C-alpha cells in the first residue's frame, strides 16, 4: 500500500456537514457516511500528507492509544482505496 492518497473526485461526490461526511460513489451508485473520526481523516486525504502524518494528526485530535489509532486509520484508508473512493497520489 502506498503512503499518500487523494480523493477520487472524478468518481465521487461528497459533502461535509457538522463533522460528518456523505460520499456518493458514481461507479457503484452507493452512499457512504463517515463519522467524526472518518471525516477528520477524510479532510486530511489531500494528496500531500502520508499515512504516518495522518495518524499523528488523529492522535493529537482524538483521545485514543496510538496503536488503536494506527490500526483504525490504516483499515479505513485501505477500505476507501479498495472502493476506489481515494487513489494513490
Amino acid at each position, binding site marked *: 500500500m502506498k503512503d499518500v492518497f487523494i480523493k477520487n473526485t472524478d468518481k465521487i461526490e461528497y459533502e461535509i*456537514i457538522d463533522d*460528518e461526511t*456523505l460520499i456518493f460513489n458514481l461507479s457503484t451508485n452507493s*452512499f*457512504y*457516511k463517515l463519522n467524526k473520526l*472518518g471525516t477528520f481523516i477524510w479532510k486530511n486525504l489531500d494528496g500531500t500528507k502520508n499515512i504516518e502524518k495522518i495518524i499523528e494528526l488523529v492522535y493529537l485530535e482524538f483521545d485514543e492509544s496510538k496503536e488503536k489509532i494506527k490500526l483504525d486509520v490504516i483499515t*479505513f484508508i485501505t477500505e476507501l482505496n479498495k472502493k476506489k473512493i481515494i487513489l494513490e497520489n
Partner: protein
Amino acid sequence: MLKEDTPHSNWKMSSAFNISILNIVSCFTLPNLNKNPRYLNEFKSNKKCNKKIDISFNNKKHDNFKKLDLTKHNITYSIKLREGNIFLKSKFYSGKINSEYAKFKIDDLGEESNYYIIKYLIKLIYSFWFLEKNILTLHASGMVYNNKAYIFSGPSGSGKSTILKKATENYETINDETILLEIKEKEIIAHPNPFYTNISPNSIKKKVEKIFFIHHSSSYSCLKISKINALKNILKNEFLMQDNMLKNKIIINKTFKLGLKLAKMVCFYNLFFTKNDLNYIINEEIKK
C-alpha cells in the same frame, strides 16, 4: 467509521417494458448543463393552458400519432411524433419537443412501448429542466396545513399515498407521488409534479415546513434526524439520483449542492408508523 448504503430504485413500470426502457435510456445523450444552462428555453403561461414547455429531442424515424387516455389518473395526454418533434398536450400542459439540444434514439418497439418510453423520457427531461431551476424532484406526497407544506417522502410502498388519502379528508393536498422542491435563497417551496400523480394536478405552491421520511413499522416513532442523514435520504429519494443510468457528474454535483441547501433549511424527521397511526400523523404530529 464507514457505512455503506445503496439507493433503491422504485420505478413503477411493468417488468415487460423495463428492459426496453433501460436500453433506450442508454442511448440518451445527457445534456451539457454548463454549455446549455437554459436547457429548456421556453416555459410560458397563457390562458389556454397553464404551462407551455419546449423540449429538445431528435427522432426522425417515427411519424405517428397516438392519443393516450389516462382517465384513471384524471389526465389525458395527447402525444404526437412528427418530423423529429414530439408534441405533448394535456388538459394542464402542452409542449413541443424538438431536436435542438438533447439527442436520443427511439427504437421501434410497438405502440404500447412507445408510450412508456416517451413518458419516461419526458419525465427525465422535465427533471433536468427542474434541476436547472434549482428544483429537486422528490419521491413524496404532500399536504397543506396552516398554509404550509408537509412532505412525506419514501420509496414505493412506504405509505405516501396512504397518508395523503387520509389527509384529503380534511386538508388540501399537493401530490401523492412526487413533489417538486424549489430551493430558494431563504425558503423551500413545494410544487406538485404533473407527471407523477394519481390525483388531479393543481397549482399549489406552499412553503415547506417539515419533511418526513416515512417507514412502515410495528410501532410508532417520529425522531428528528441529523443534516447528514437528511441529505442521504433526500438523495436516496431524489428522482435523478435513483436512476442508475444517469451517472452524470454535473447532474449529481448539482443535486448534491441543492440537497445540502435543503438539508440545512428544513427540519427532517424519520417517521415510523402503522396504519392505525394515520389520524395521529395528520392531526397531531404535523402540528407539533
